[in-house]
């Protein structure tokens, strides 16, 4: 008999006033008992709507049933049949818009906490599971994967399982892409990312760091070196700026730079590492996506006293995961919604404040969200020393500039065939943010998986 509690088993987490001063993970995870109790809330309904909400088709009710029965390893097997990175997805997927958003328990009460259960299973396996001996028969065909973020890792893993000889090329000194440089430690511990990457290298995937495709090697060079296909999973790494006066003042960071300094370069260790990061006492983060909440919460942890999220639209339009917004508020981040930055003011070259104009919501725009319109004369200045611009990223131009025949959208996204993720260049595939523009980890993984399938179908014939 299902557990009919209308609410989720609460997630144990660090107290907000303690966690906003450290970089340890916010949510500490379910115990086995909590997981079994939560799993028993799944009524194993016939239509499995949750699965239709999952971009990688995890057999959700199947794994939850195993959790309820206490067979966590079996649950792990089921998840990883479709999802190579469960410890990551359990933590960073926007479940409320995906699996949990479709759960019928959500109609009268809260959805089953699929994300927390996925996380529990992955963590359980990491601590208790045994490494499996892999006997993969190599097929002698070679695939180059460009970028070691979620799209690249997934594509590489899927192809390696099928016997391909896969090499991932990573531009930075460390693999993981946005999982390493972007998402902070308190939301996604880097030790987990390392372990998930290890699963892929255990399958025989080679990772070459410090190779910038488009500079160190071109896509054409990869074919010349004997690769039969190339997958581009280079993400959306080029930061957008507001193009308002004062953006080059000292104290203005792109979110990419701010987070990279803290995460990849370990700026959170403060004096212990040579890469500095300046946070100041008052910080404004412009934008309200997950990157913005990550930056705001990071600033708080680095010692900022007042941290604002400045966003031109309203609460309903905030793109960040609901949990991140809630966590940010608990930690003391102040949301200044319907405030559009118009200038950054400085003194002697340093940021002194950010001038905003208040907005009201008008008719829906092309994105379907209500268009913010300025209220004339409502300008005011928020005193801050640091401004972090988190209004989105575009694809990096290095590959499109150096690859003939690779067609892109006006904004830089690579154009692909819907069914196969193949680009306008034969045997060159692409997926993730480089195709869609900045989106989510799970959508990138879905694209990596789809491309892997298409690559296999194309190469298997040769």
């Amino acid at each position, binding site marked *: 008999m299902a557990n009919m509690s209308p609410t989720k088993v609460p997630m144990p987490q660090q107290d907000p006033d303690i966690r906003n001063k450290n970089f340890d993970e916010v949510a500490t995870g379910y115990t086995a008992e909590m997981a079994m109790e939560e799993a028993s809330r799944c009524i194993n309904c016939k239509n499995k709507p949750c699965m239709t909400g999952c971009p990688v088709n995890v057999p959700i009710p199947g794994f939850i049933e195993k959790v309820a029965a206490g067979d966590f390893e079996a649950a792990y097997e089921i998840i990883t049949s479709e999802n190579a990175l469960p410890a990551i997805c359990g933590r960073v997927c926007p479940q409320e818009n995906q699996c949990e958003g479709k759960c019928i328990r959500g109609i009268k009460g809260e959805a089953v906490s699929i994300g927390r259960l996925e996380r529990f299973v992955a963590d359980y396996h990491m601590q208790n599971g045994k490494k499996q001996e892999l006997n993969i028969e190599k097929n002698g065909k070679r695939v180059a994967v460009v970028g070691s973020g979620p799209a690249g890792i997934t594509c590489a893993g899927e192809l390696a399982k099928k016997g391909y000889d896969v090499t991932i090329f990573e*531009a*930075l*000194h460390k693999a993981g892409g946005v999982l390493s*440089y972007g998402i902070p430690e308190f939301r996604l511990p880097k030790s987990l990312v390392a372990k998930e990457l290890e699963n892929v290298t255990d399958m025989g995937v080679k990772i070459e*760091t*410090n*190779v*910038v495709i488009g*500079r*160190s*090697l071109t896509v054409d060079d990869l074919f010349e070196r004997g690769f039969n296909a190339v997958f581009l999973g280079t993400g959306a*790494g*080029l*930061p957008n*700026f507001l*193009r308002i006066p004062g*953006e*080059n003042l*000292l104290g203005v*960071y*792109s979110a*990419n*730079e701010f987070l*990279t*300094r803290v995460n*990849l*370069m*370990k700026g959170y*260790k403060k*004096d*212990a*590492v*040579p*890469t*500095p990061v*300046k946070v100041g006492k008052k910080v404004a983060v412009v934008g309200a996506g997950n990157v913005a909440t990550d930056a705001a919460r990071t600033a708080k942890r680095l010692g900022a006293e007042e941290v604002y999220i400045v966003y031109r639209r309203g609460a309903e339009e905030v793109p960040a995961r609901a949990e991140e917004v809630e966590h940010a508020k608990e930690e003391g981040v102040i949301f200044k919604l319907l405030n559009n930055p118009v200038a950054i003011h400085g003194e002697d*070259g340093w940021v002194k404040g950010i001038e905003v104009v208040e907005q009201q919501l008008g008719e829906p725009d092309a994105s379907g969200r209500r268009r913010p319109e300025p209220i004339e004369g409502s300008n005011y200045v928020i005193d801050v020393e640091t401004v972090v611009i988190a209004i989105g990223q575009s694809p*990096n*131009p*290095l590959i499109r500039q150096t690859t003939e025949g690779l067609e892109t959208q006006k904004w830089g996204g690579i154009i692909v065939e819907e069914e196969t993720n193949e680009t306008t260049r034969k045997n060159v595939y692409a997926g993730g943010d480089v195709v869609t523009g900045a989106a989510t980890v799970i959508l990138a993984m879905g694209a990596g998986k789809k491309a892997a399938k298409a690559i296999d179908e194309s190469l298997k014939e040769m």
Partner: protein
Amino acid sequence: MYKILKKEIMNEAVIMMEVDAPYVAARCEAGQFVIVRLGEDGERIPLTIADFDREKNSVTIIFQVVGYSTEQYAKLEEGDAFDDFVGPLGQPAPFGKWNRVLGVAGGVGSAPLYPQLKKLSEMGVECDVIIGGRSAEFVILAEKFAKFCKNVYIMTDDGTLGEQGLVTKKIQELLDAGEKYDHCIAIGPLVMMKFVVATTKPADLHTTVSLNPIMIDGTGMCGGCRVTVGGETKFACVDGPDFDGFLVDFDECMKRQTFYKEEEHACRMRNAAN
């Protein structure tokens, strides 16, 4: 790991290293740079490429010891290795159809200027060079430039080598003497490049400068290296590092260079105490 094949101390503050780096050596061109890193938590430091040998798979860097990380690099010996050495980054130097070029180097700026003039001279361009330094030992690569430059003018602040005075004094002299150049390439400290441009602009001698702002990834990801060129924001790492000197906002560049002055000072103090 990227092994150091050769090390040479050029003066008390400047070191040359030839490093095994096959990817960079295979594709790099004059004007491009690399990012190096040393140690588990090491920072990423952009360094210009001073020379390369495609057959030996090696790249030569020349760097000035200015802070914590370069002090650590200076301690490395032949046979030791950098953990990371990535490139080539940035655009190759933008060369025009020139017959005669004037190169101007200040201090360690000789290093990135050298491959540019070498390449131009291989293309048949006549090159002159002005090399400036605080004193004799800070004038580097003069003999190497002399191999292909028609005239090598050396300027030192204290007159211990060549003539006493700044590089701009020599530029003015050459211009006043009626010397004609199609282009000038100036690489050195920001303040030097600013004044070179102030000298060449009135004479309408088009001048390229090479910028080396603070950056992390060197691939366009952080945006920390943004510079204003002709009123537009550019990323030095992917749009540069070479820009039209007439259009660069040097004052903003100089200001941005001071972003971490306090931290650098604190870091050096800690390092000295250790």
